[in-house]
C-alpha cells in the first residue's frame, strides 16, 4: 500500500450544504405554511489527502452522490466552501474540471454511443491542450494502454465493449486531462464479481503509479476495505464517522457504522447477532429528526440524543465520530466465529 503523506490535502470542503426547496400546494401557499425543503447535505467537512483513496459509504439518500457532484462542479452548493489546493487563485471552470474528474456508476449510460473512442479522447486532449496536436493519437493510445485496452479500440464505439471494458473507457476519459483528483461514484457496483476485481486492481494501480487521489463512493464495505486507506461514513447528509480503514472496521465508534458492518453478508463467517442491529430504514431528508439524526433507529439512544445534535468530534488519532455516546459504546467484538452446522 502506498504511503500517505500526512495532512497534505488536494481537496478540502468546509461546511458544505445543499438544500432543495420543494414545490408547495396552492392551499399551503395561501395559508402561509412554511416552505418545505430537502437537505441533501447538511454541513459536510472533508479533506482529501494527496495520493490516498478515501471511501465514502452510506445508504441511498445519505448525500454521497450529491457531494460527488458538488466536488466536480456539476452542482452548486447552497453554502460552504471548496478549496482546491494546488490550483491557481481565480482558476476558471475549465481549469477546475481539469483538476477533478469523475467516473460514473453506469458505464452504459455515461458514454456517448455515437462518438467513437478515438474522437472522445482526441476531443478532450485538444480542448484542454494536454498535448500538441501531433501527439494526440499517441497520447490516446497511451491512455488506452494505461487502462488495459488496445490500440484498436480507437475506432470502436462504446456499444462494442462489455461493461467492464466500458468502465475502463470511462476511466481513460477521466485520465485524459491528467487530473489530480478522481471522484468515482459506485464505479464497480454495476459489474459482475469477476470483472469487478480487475477494475479495483486498476484503481489501485492508478493510485500507486500516478499518485492520484481518489474519492471512492461505494456501498459495498468489503470493496471499500480492500481499496481505501480512509473511510467516511455518511448518514442523512452528514458525515457521522471518519477514520483510517483498519481503525474504523476494528473499532467503530458510531452505532450506525457498527450496524453497517454487522449487515455485511459474510462469505467466510456467519452473520452477527450484535445488539447494534438497526430497525427500519433511513428517514427522508425532508424531515430530518431533531437531535441526533440517527436516534430513531439507534439501539442505544438516550433522552439527550433526542434533543442534542452532535457534531463530528475527535475520539482518537485521525478518528472522529458524531455520537454523543462514542466514548461509552461497548467494545466491538469484531469478527464473529464460524458457527458449526445450521
Amino acid at each position: 500500500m502506498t504511503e500517505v503523506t500526512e495532512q497534505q490535502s488536494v481537496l478540502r470542503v468546509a461546511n458544505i450544504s445543499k438544500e432543495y426547496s420543494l414545490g408547495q400546494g396552492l392551499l399551503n401557499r395561501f395559508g402561509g405554511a412554511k416552505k418545505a425543503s430537502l437537505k441533501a447535505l447538511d454541513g459536510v467537512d472533508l479533506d482529501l489527502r494527496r495520493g490516498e483513496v478515501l471511501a465514502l459509504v452510506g445508504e441511498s439518500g445519505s448525500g454521497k452522490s450529491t457531494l460527488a457532484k458538488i466536488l466536480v462542479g456539476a452542482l452548486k452548493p447552497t453554502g460552504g466552501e471548496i478549496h482546491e489546493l494546488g490550483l491557481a487563485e481565480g482558476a476558471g471552470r475549465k481549469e477546475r474540471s481539469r483538476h477533478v474528474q469523475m467516473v460514473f456508476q453506469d458505464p452504459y449510460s455515461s458514454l456517448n454511443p455515437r462518438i467513437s473512442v478515438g474522437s472522445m479522447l482526441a476531443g478532450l486532449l485538444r480542448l484542454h491542450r494536454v498535448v500538441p496536436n501531433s501527439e494526440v493519437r499517441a497520447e490516446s493510445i497511451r491512455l488506452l494502454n494505461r487502462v488495459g485496452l488496445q490500440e484498436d479500440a480507437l475506432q470502436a464505439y462504446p456499444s462494442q465493449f462489455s461493461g467492464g471494458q466500458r468502465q475502463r473507457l470511462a476511466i481513460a476519459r477521466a485520465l485524459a486531462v491528467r487530473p489530480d483528483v478522481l471522484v468515482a461514484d459506485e464505479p464497480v457496483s454495476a459489474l459482475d464479481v469477476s470483472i469487478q476485481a480487475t477494475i479495483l486492481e486498476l484503481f489501485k494501480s492508478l493510485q500507486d503509479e500516478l499518485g492520484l487521489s481518489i474519492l471512492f463512493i461505494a456501498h459495498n464495505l468489503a470493496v471499500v476495505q480492500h481499496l481505501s486507506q480512509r473511510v467516511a461514513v455518511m448518514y442523512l447528509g452528514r458525515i457521522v464517522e471518519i477514520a483510517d480503514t483498519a481503525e474504523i472496521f476494528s473499532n467503530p465508534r458510531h452505532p450506525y457504522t457498527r450496524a453497517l458492518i454487522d449487515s455485511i453478508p459474510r462469505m467466510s463467517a456467519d452473520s452477527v447477532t450484535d445488539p447494534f442491529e438497526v430497525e427500519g430504514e433511513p428517514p427522508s431528508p425532508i424531515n430530518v429528526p431533531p437531535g441526533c439524526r440517527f436516534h430513531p433507529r439507534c439501539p442505544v439512544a438516550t433522552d439527550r440524543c433526542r434533543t442534542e445534535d452532535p457534531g463530528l468530534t475527535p475520539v482518537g488519532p485521525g478518528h472522529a465520530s458524531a455520537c454523543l455516546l462514542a466514548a461509552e459504546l461497548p467494545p466491538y467484538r469484531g469478527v464473529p466465529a464460524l458457527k458449526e452446522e445450521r
Partner: protein
Amino acid sequence: MSEATLLSVRNLSLGVRRKGRPATVIVDDISFGVAEGMRFGIVGESGSGKSMTLRAIANLLPAGVEVLSGSIEYRGKDLRAMPARSRLALAGQEIAMIFQEPMTALNPVMRVGDQIAESPRRNLGLSKSAAMDLAVDMMRKTGIPDPARRARAYPHELSGGLRQRIMIAMALSCSPKLLLCDEPTTALDVTVQHQVLRLLEQLCEDTNTALIFVTHDLGVVNQTCRELGVMYAGELVERGRVKDVFAGPRHPYTKGLLDSAPDFDQPDRELIAIPGFPPNLADRATGCPFQPRCAFAVERCATDRPRLESVLPGREAACFESARIFEGVTA
C-alpha cells in the same frame, strides 16, 4: 437425498428457436432437486441462465424463450404436462415468487393490502374481509409498522424496503411450499438487506418452506442457503453444501469467483480476476465452456464436454480436473 423431494429439475434446456438454424441454448441440460424445507442458492454472473431457470419453474419465461427439453417435476408431477388451469392454481398456492424490483412487480394503481389479499381470496376461497385480515396479519409478520394503515397505501407511497416486505407478504400469503427468489435484496441498502434476509430465513423456517434463491452475491448465499449450485454459460458446473463449496471449490469457475470477490473477513487477500469473458451463447464451442478462461485446462477440455458428476459424497462438479482444482495445482 434423505428428505422428500419437492421439486426436481431433470435435464432442463431452455433456448430461443430460430428459423432454419439450431436453437440458441440459454440453459443447457441442468438437473437438480430441492427437498422440502431446503434452501438452495444458485449463483452465477449475468447471462449465466440462473434467472431463466427460475422463471422456467414459475412458468414465467419471457416471450421467445422456450423449454427445449427436459422436465420440471413438482411432487412427482410434471409441471409442463399439466393442464394450464391446474398449473395456474399451483402458482400462488404452492409455488410463489419474489422478484428483484418490487416497484415494477407490484401493481401501481392497486392498494397493497388488496394486492396481498388477492391470492388468498382466489386460492383459499376466503371472503373479502377475511382475506384482508390475513393480508394485514402477513404485513405484521413481515415487520411492517402500522400494517392496518399501510395496507391502504399504494406502492409508490412506500420505501424500497417496505415494498420488498409487501412482496414477501404477498408471496407467503397462501403458505407456499416452494418460494422462488430472484435477487430479492439486490436493490436494497445493506442494513435493510440484512433485515429482509433475516425475515425470509425466519419465515421459511416457521412454515418449512423450501427456497430457491438466485443471486450473484456470494455473501448473501452463504447467509441464507444450505445447498448451492453454481451456473456458468447456462450450465450447472458445481453443486454441494455452501460451506463445503466455499471451503474447497471443485470447479475452476467457482474457484475463480471466490478468488475474485472481496471478503470482508480476509481484507489482505489479493483479488484474482478471471481472465477473459463468458462465451457467446449463440455459437457454443465444443468442449468445456470455461476452457478458454481456465488456468487448469488440459488438451481434452477443448474437445470433450465435462458433465456434472459426483466427485465426493454430496458434491458434484463438471470438470475433468476437479481433483487438481481442489489441490490448486495449475497446468
